[in-house]
């Protein structure tokens, strides 16, 4: 396993993580003991066929759900046994989400969508300026007052990326970020993510089943049947 030279402490440290789902009496193991370290500044793709557990793993890494057993350290904080409201604070402070379907609120404009995570954070000062800066960073400085339905798919995903970055999280978690986009827009979004990774050293975790998307990553983690198959390095 290749370890990034720039830091010794992993930002994501998953140890023997399992997750069981219960369908009535039947136990369905979705994750069966995952070990995974991701270091600051890395861009990692998590791949795998459907049913391999990659969505479940993404929910764990995103602190949206709690594991059945195992440990998960995020930014050196043990989050695997935190409760709902504490997890909400962790999500707010440490994680930026980018979804396949953008998930922007249709009633409010771009800048308010970007500022949404700031409303739930402790530091609510200069919300507007920080949201503006995030929108500038994704190249949407001239679309701040537009509502989601006045923006193209690619632009909406840029707003979503700005929203993910506005609270300066430890990781950016992108779930099929190009899944709803045409190839040109998808390419632009991937370029934006790579730029963020290279220029601002943002740690990015991509969940995708699209190999061309995954080739942008420095490292691909293959999941199969709830286990990590063969971590392989990409140039």
């Amino acid at each position: 396993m290749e370890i990034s030279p720039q830091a010794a402490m992993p930002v994501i440290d998953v140890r023997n993580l399992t997750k069981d789902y219960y369908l009535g009496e039947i136990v369905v193991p979705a994750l069966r003991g995952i070990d995974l370290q991701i270091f600051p500044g890395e861009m990692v793709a998590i791949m795998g066929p459907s049913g391999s557990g990659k969505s479940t793993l993404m929910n764990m890494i995103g602190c949206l759900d709690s594991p059945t057993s195992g440990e998960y350290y995020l930014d050196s904080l043990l989050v695997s046994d935190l409760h709902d409201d504490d997890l909400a604070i962790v999500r707010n402070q440490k994680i930026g989400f980018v979804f396949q379907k953008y998930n922007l609120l249709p009633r409010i404009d771009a800048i308010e969508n970007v500022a949404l995570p700031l409303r739930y954070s402790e530091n609510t000062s200069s919300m507007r300026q920080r949201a503006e800066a995030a929108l500038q960073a994704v190249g949407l400085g001239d679309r701040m007052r537009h509502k989601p339905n006045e923006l193209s798919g690619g632009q909406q995903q840029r707003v979503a990326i700005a929203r993910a970055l506005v609270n300066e999280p430890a990781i950016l978690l992108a779930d099929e970020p190009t899944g709803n986009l045409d190839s040109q827009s998808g390419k632009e979004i991937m370029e934006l993510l790579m730029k963020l990774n290279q220029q601002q050293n943002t740690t990015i975790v991509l969940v995708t089943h699209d190999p061309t998307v995954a080739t942008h990553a420095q490292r691909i983690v293959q999941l199969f049947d709830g286990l990590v198959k063969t971590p392989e390095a990409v140039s």
Partner: protein
Amino acid sequence: MKFLQALKEAIASLSANKTRSFLTVLGIVIGVGAVIGVLSIGQGAEASIIGQIESIGTNVIYVFRGNRSEDVTNPNRLTTADADALSNRARAPHIINIASVLSGQSRVRFGDESTQTSIMGVAENYAEVTDLKLSEGSFFTESNVTNRSSVVVLGPELAERLTGRRTELVGTTVHINNYPFRVVGSAIAKGGNQFSSPDMDAYIPITAMQLRVQRQSVPNAVDFLLIQAQDSQSIDLAMQEAKAILRASHRLTSRQPDDFTMTNQEDILSIANSITKILTIFLAGIAAISLLVGGIGIMNIMLVSVTERTREIGLRKALGARKFDIQLQFLTESAMLSVFGGLIGIGLGWLLGKVVGIIAANSGTPLVPEISLNSVLLATLFSLAVGLFFGWYPALRAANLEPVEALRYE
């Protein structure tokens, strides 16, 4: 800060669905409107009744036949003989005036106009006891009463209805129960001094009443007696004296209970007060049921809204909203709906009161609906409570959604 933000978001979210919000609010509008309307009419009625009772003067005692707290078989009717007995200044030094009253409904006719109204057969000192003032002519005299004269004093409303004017009536003739009566005076409008509307009354000598309008099985029978005490301080003494005299004249032994009932201003005031209060509370209670229905409507719509916005809730949770944040957001919306409805309802209730006031004024009953600051505050707080109560469950449902499932919701 958080709360202000929640308020702003609630306004945005509710105004995004204007028609739905308006229809949801309608239940609360009607409920609060009905409560406020009933309360204001009730308060107006109370004030009007108290005003009417007080306008008689505070030193008047009413004597009725019968006893309402104890069983009395065959109570003696009150008669003019009782009135004469009470007039004995030696035995009743604190009583200064007695007026006997025999009242009944009859038709009064002037030319082609006629109307059914209450005829008050009264003694000559009735005007003095009840402070009835005339705009022209004079009240009938003792000799009119003794001679059973067919003379009448008209109340101003009655005069106007019959003749189209309130004065210049002395000397004309009206027919009561088809007997001609000569008008000797017209009263000044009082706006009410009993439970009836005295401005619609006609006053004739009690003897003429007995003879021409309402024949009685007991000669000289009267409906009630008005006793005027010296002043409001001596009213208890006057009542004691009257009681002793009436018991003697009705030949009651010391074991028998009174066969008459005496009340004074204070008693009547407190009875009237409690009657209007009970009625008001009763009606407001019924109106409050519609508030309940409105609250259930809010709950229903909030539940729909939570389902519709499941993905939004999931997203907010993913971005760091805690349970409390989500709960606050939905509670603010339901509270805002119901308070908004409450405010419109207060306006509606005020309007309702105004309309009833106008109708009452047109039909000759003085009633000015009053909206007190208390009832406005009560309505606002109550509708806020309705919103919080019925919004609680939907808000809790929203807050307890699992972020993973909410985000996946289609």
